[in-house]
């Protein structure tokens, strides 16, 4: 498993070129400040990071370490104060607002901690939301979403409203929604936070099966140490800086 952070050099080697071809996200010099009254708080301190396709990358750290801010910037929903983010080669913060929104719609799938399913539409329609947002008609979109729900073993729950589903089932619908439009990057925020240990592992196994592929990257923000062993790569954030980049958690964590 590759676990080194790629650094641009003036004379790239063959392995570096292959690595760049495999690069999903390249973030360099990311600084993010937040205003708090009169003062400014720096949450990210010049982060350089690379996320590669075919890997399930965990971003871990304690609350307030900046991991949510980092992935928000990496997936184009929060502007960095300084720095550059390239997603599949595109400098996303050089895009116009509309181009950026469309870029997310085409390339990124989201799994939110609280699922954020729309309560008044059924599971199939919820899973089909990205397709509908792309302009697909309701029925074909639902049909495609159904295929994914079947693959996630909740096809029989497709016509139920979110409130009629268990937490794990809602999580699967959220996973289906994140993957239905076949994005190249999947971003998950605390996917196991609301689940017990066995359900959490099942969800992570499921994610590995459906979300990780050769041409797709998967980033997971978590502080759930029960699932650290399932990561291909772990980035540890402390006080807005990456302090570890490896296949396992460092000692002491």
């Amino acid at each position, binding site marked *: 498993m590759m676990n080194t952070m790629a650094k641009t050099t003036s004379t790239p080697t063959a392995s570096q070129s292959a690595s760049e071809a495999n690069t999903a996200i390249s973030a360099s010099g990311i600084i993010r400040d937040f205003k708090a009254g009169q003062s400014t708080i720096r949450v990210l301190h010049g982060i350089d990071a690379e996320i590669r396709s075919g890997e399930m990358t965990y971003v871990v750290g304690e609350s307030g370490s900046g991991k949510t801010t980092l992935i928000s910037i990496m997936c184009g*929903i929060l502007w960095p104060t300084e720095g550059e983010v390239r997603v599949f080669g595109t400098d996303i913060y050089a895009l116009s607002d509309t181009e950026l929104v469309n870029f997310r719609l085409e390339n990124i799938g989201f799994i*939110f901690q609280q699922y954020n399913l729309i*309560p008044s*539409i059924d599971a199939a329609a919820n899973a089909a939301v*990205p397709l509908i947002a792309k302009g697909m008609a309701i029925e074909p979109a639902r049909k495609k979403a159904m295929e994914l729900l079947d693959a996630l073993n909740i096809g029989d729950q497709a016509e139920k*409203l979110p409130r009629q589903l268990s937490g794990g089932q809602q999580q699967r619908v959220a996973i289906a929604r994140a993957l239905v439009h076949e994005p190249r990057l999947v971003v998950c925020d605390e996917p196991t936070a609301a689940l017990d240990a066995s359900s959490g592992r099942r969800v992570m196994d499921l994610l590995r099966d459906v979300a990780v592929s050769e041409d797709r990257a998967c980033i997971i923000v978590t502080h759930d140490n029960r699932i650290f062993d399932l990561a291909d790569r772990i980035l540890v954030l402390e006080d807005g800086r990456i302090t570890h980049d490896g296949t396992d958690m460092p000692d002491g964590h």
Partner: protein
Amino acid sequence: MLWIAIRMLTGDKQKFYGLLFGIAFSTLLITQQLTIFVNLIERGASGVYSAPEAEVWVMDPVSRTTEVNYAMPATALDEVRSVEGVEWAVPHLRAVASVRNSVGDLEGVTIVGVDDATLIGLPESMIEGRKSVLSRPDTVLIDDVGVTKMFSPGESPIGARLELNDQRAVIRGIADAIPSFTSQVTLYTKYSQALNYVPGTRNRLTFVLAGVRDGETAEAVAQRISDQTGLKALPREELAQSGVDFIIENTGIPLNFGITVALGFIVGVAIVGLTFSLFIRDNIKQFGALKAIGVTNFKIAKMVVAQATLVGAVGYALGVVGTVMFIYGFSGNPTFKGFYIPWQIPFISLIAVVVILALTGWISLRSVMRTEPASVFR
């Protein structure tokens, strides 16, 4: 996305019905109150509309409406008849009197004396009896509002004897008249008979009703009458408008109805604004998620507009239907006789609904627009 927007709206039934109620209630209040207001002030012209043949009304220069009048000398009739362009001219008397009915109750009434020979000045149609019955002695016709005010339900007024300013009067017909602004009982009789019923002042001719010759206009003839006689002469529409204006200027009705209409608007803004804001706030995470997924602000705005449009269309329709049902339900009551909904009133209500929804939708939309997609990760 509009399908999702509508499902989001209708899925939360409590708020959806709350929004519908707010819009429907506002529409009902605004439409119904404006309808009553317009119909009520139009009653200021009922005296004019109840004498459909008259094209020009001639009166003392100080007279203002059919109800607020000052009598002229009887010679005014001949003066008017002598003006070129006048096809015919007949006397018309309008005065108030007190009537005592068979059980001794006292009622203020309007006496209308119409031309003995032609009966010009009577309402166009009769509900019961014939106009010609006025040729019989002491005969009066009563209007349908008068029947409900002076007689018990089911009791026939025909043949009832009244004591009218100490004179005998017998009701022998019911006229299909437009009620006056005050819904006062109106008794129609011949001009010569009316002179007996009203107190014996020197001048009792209150109006001269005139028709114009072919090729003349009512405006031109009225102007000619004014110039040649020194009397006030108005085409019927102008006198009708004077009656309406008199009520607007001299009563608190526009203010009262205006306050109610304003309250309808404010209640609409309050209910709809509050409910819509709650609805948006409850769904703010979902809107944030949609924005993160890749739904543009423009599409989100279209979703909110679609939700507001659905609520507005259904609520407005319910409100207008409610008003129609109200007017229809009371159409049998003579007080509401002839009430109608001019097309301008639903149009005004529609504008009010659009303003309410635009205002509340804009306020709600601002919070959605301000929501950062990154908020879904918090």
